C-alpha cells in the first residue's frame, strides 16, 4: 500500500466506494476577502469505513463536511456517490440523499431550534423513518430505545427545551437521532469538542457501537490526531484547505511523511507514549 504525495489517494480494493471526491474546491467571497476554505481536495471513502479528517482550526474541515452533506455547493470539483456523480439538484433528490446521509454538527448549542421542544427533533426522525403519526405507543417506544442507547432518560427529557440541557446531553441527543435514522453515512463534526473526557469516551463508544449495528460509514472530523489514531481506519490530514497526507491510520500516524503531520503528532504528547509502548 503506497501513499501519498499531495492529494493522492490510497485504495482498498475489497470494499465498495461510498463517497468520493475529485478536485473539490470551495472559495468564499471574492476579491480581497477571498478565502479558499477547501482547496482541490481528493478523497475516497469506503462503505463501513471509519475515516477521520484531522486538521487545525480553520483548516476547512467543517466546510468540507458541509459539502459532503450537500449543504454547500463546491465552487469546483465533483463528488461521487457510490461511484456515480452525485446528483442533488432537485429538492426531491436532496431529500432522498439526506435519508442515507446524516450529520452531527460541531456546535450542539446552535444545532437545536431553541423554540421547539426537543421531542420535535426525535419525532421528525420517526417521521422520516415512516413511523405513523397516530401510533403514539410505537413512537414512545422508539424514542425511549434511542435515548437508552445514548444513556439518556427519555422521560426526563420529554417536554424540555434545548436550553434546559447540557452540551453533552445535546450531543447525545444528536447521536440518538442518528440511532433512529440509521443512515448509511454519518458525518460527525467534532461531536466531542465541547465535552469532558469521560463523556467523550462514552460518546465515541456509542458511535462505534452504532457502526457495528448498522454498518455505516463514519466520517469523523477532529483536531485531535491522537483520538483519530485510536479510533479510525484511515485518516486525512488537512492543512489550509488542502489534504497533505492520507492513508491508513497506523501508517500515517506511526510513520508520518508530511511536515504538518509530524508537527501535529509532536503537539500531542500522548501519541509518543502510545508509540513507545507499541514498539517495546
Amino acid at each position, binding site marked *: 500500500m503506497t501513499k501519498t504525495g499531495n492529494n493522492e489517494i490510497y485504495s482498498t480494493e475489497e470494499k465498495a466506494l461510498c463517497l468520493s471526491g475529485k478536485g473539490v474546491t470551495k472559495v468564499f467571497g471574492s476579491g480581497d476577502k477571498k478565502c479558499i476554505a477547501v482547496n482541490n481536495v481528493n478523497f475516497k471513502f469506503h462503505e463501513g469505513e471509519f475515516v477521520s479528517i484531522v486538521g487545525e482550526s480553520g483548516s476547512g474541515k467543517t466546510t468540507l463536511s*458541509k459539502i459532503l*452533506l450537500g*449543504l454547500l455547493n463546491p465552487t469546483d470539483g465533483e463528488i461521487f456517490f457510490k461511484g456515480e456523480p452525485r446528483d442533488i439538484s432537485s429538492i426531491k433528490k436532496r431529500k432522498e440523499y*439526506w435519508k442515507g446521509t446524516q*450529520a452531527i454538527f460541531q456546535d450542539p448549542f446552535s444545532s*437545536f431550534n431553541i*423554540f*421547539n421542544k426537543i421531542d420535535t427533533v426525535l419525532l421528525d426522525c420517526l*417521521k422520516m423513518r415512516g413511523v405513523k403519526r397516530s401510533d403514539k405507543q410505537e413512537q414512545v417506544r422508539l424514542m425511549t430505545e434511542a435515548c437508552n442507547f445514548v444513556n439518556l432518560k427519555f422521560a426526563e427529557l420529554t417536554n424540555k427545551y434545548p436550553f434546559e440541557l447540557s452540551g453533552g446531553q445535546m450531543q447525545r441527543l444528536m447521536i440518538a437521532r442518528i440511532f433512529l435514522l440509521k443512515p448509511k453515512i454519518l458525518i460527525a463534526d467534532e461531536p466531542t469538542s465541547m465535552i469532558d473526557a469521560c463523556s467523550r469516551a462514552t460518546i465515541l463508544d456509542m458511535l462505534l457501537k452504532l457502526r457495528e449495528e448498522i454498518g455505516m460509514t463514519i466520517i469523523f472530523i477532529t483536531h485531535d490526531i491522537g483520538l483519530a489514531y485510536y479510533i479510525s481506519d484511515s485518516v486525512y490530514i488537512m492543512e489550509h484547505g488542502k489534504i497533505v497526507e492520507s492513508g491508513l491510520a497506523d501508517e500515517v500516524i506511526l510513520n508520518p511523511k508530511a511536515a504538518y503531520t509530524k508537527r501535529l503528532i509532536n503537539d500531542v504528547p500522548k501519541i509518543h507514549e502510545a508509540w513507545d509502548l507499541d514498539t517495546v
Partner: protein
Amino acid sequence: MTNTIKQIFHSPKFVVGFCIMAFILLSMIIYPLVNPGNPLEMIGLGSFQKPGTYVSLYDSIDSSSTIFKLPDAENNRISQKLKDEDRIAIMNWLIDYGVSESDINLSDTNSLLDLWWKNYDSSILVEGMTKAKRNYYMRLNKSLESAKRTEEYVVSHTDKELNELETVRTIENTDYVNIQDVANVKRLPLGTDNFGRDVLKELVSACGTSLRIGLIAGAIATLIGLTFGLLAGYVGGIVDDIIMFITNIFTVIPSFVLLLLISYSIGQDQRGASTIALVIGFTSWVWTARAVRAQVISLRKRDHVNLSKLSGHSLIRIIITDILPYIASYVVMAFILQISTAILAEAQLSMLGLGPKTTEVPTLGLMMNWSMLYAAHLNGSWWAYFPVLLTIALISFSLNLMNTGLDQVFNPTLRD
C-alpha cells in the same frame, strides 16, 4: 414565552410607554361614550372660541337666582375688562396726555383708573394719535364704564299683541344663578376650532383615525418587508437579485417624495383615510425588508436550519419554524416603529394638504392642517394646534419607548 412577557413588563421604559399608550387608547374608547355625537359637527358659529365652560345666557335669565354680597365682585368685574395690554394703553395715553410717568402705577388698578376717569375725555385730541387708536380708547372707556355701573339690568320681551315691552326680570349686580340650574351649559375643555367644532371631541376621534392609519400602514409595510426580506434572504440567488433591485429603487427615491407623488396623483376625492394608510404602507417597507434579509442571511447558515434540512423539511416549514421565531421579536419592534412613522407621515402629508379628504374624518394631521390654514398659531389660538402636537408627540414617544424597552429585553448586550 410567559417568562419573556414578564421580563418585558419589568422593563421600566416599556411599562411607561405602555401606560401612556393604554391611557390614550382608554380615552379613545371611553370619551365617545361620555360625549357621543359627530366629532365634525360645527357647534359654534364663530371660530376659535377659547377653552372653558359656556353657560347659556338665555337660560340663565330663566333660572332662579340667589343673592351673594361678595366684596371682590366689583373689582373682579373691572379687572376682567381691563387686560394687561389695556393697562399699558392707558399708561401710554396718560403719558401722552401729560401725566408724569412716576405717578402711574400699572399694578394698582384703583389708582390707575382714578387717573383715567379724572383725565380722559374722548373730545381731547392727543397729538399724533391715529383714528383707530382713538376709537380703541373710546371703546375701552365704554366697557370700563359699564363695568363700573351699579344699576340693575332690565330684561324684557316684546308682547306681540300690545306691541310693547313687558319686563320679565330685573337683574341686580349681586344676583347669582347656580350653574346646575341652567338648562344649557357647554363644556369645551379645548375650545373650538376654526369651524366652531369641539376640539377635544375632534382630537379623540382624530387620535383613533391616526392610530388606525398607523396600524394599517404599519401592518402592510411590515408584511411586505417581512415577505421580501425572508424570500431574498433565505431563497437567495435570482429571487434575491430581483427583490434587492426593487428595494434599491425604493431606497434611492426618498419614500416621502414617493408618498407625496402618489398622494397627489390619487386626487383629493379618492383619498380616504384607508387609502392614505395603504399608500404610506406601500412606500415604507424598504428598511424592514433590508433588515429582515440581513438577519435571515446570517440565520440560514446556522446548524439548526441545516438540521431541519437534513430532516427533510420543506422550504416553507423551515422559514416558518426555524427562521421566523428567531426574528419575531425584531419584526414586532419594526412593526411598532412603522406605526409611529406612519402616524408622522400622515401628519406631514396632511399638513401639506395631501392627506385624507377633509370632510369625513378628522386625523391628527388634518387638525394641524386646519389650524395652520386658519392661522391659529398667529392669532394665539393655541388650543387648536398645541393639544394635537402634544398627542402626536405622546403617541410616538410611547411607541418608541416601548420599542427601546423591548430592544433591551430582546437584545441582552444593550441591557445595563
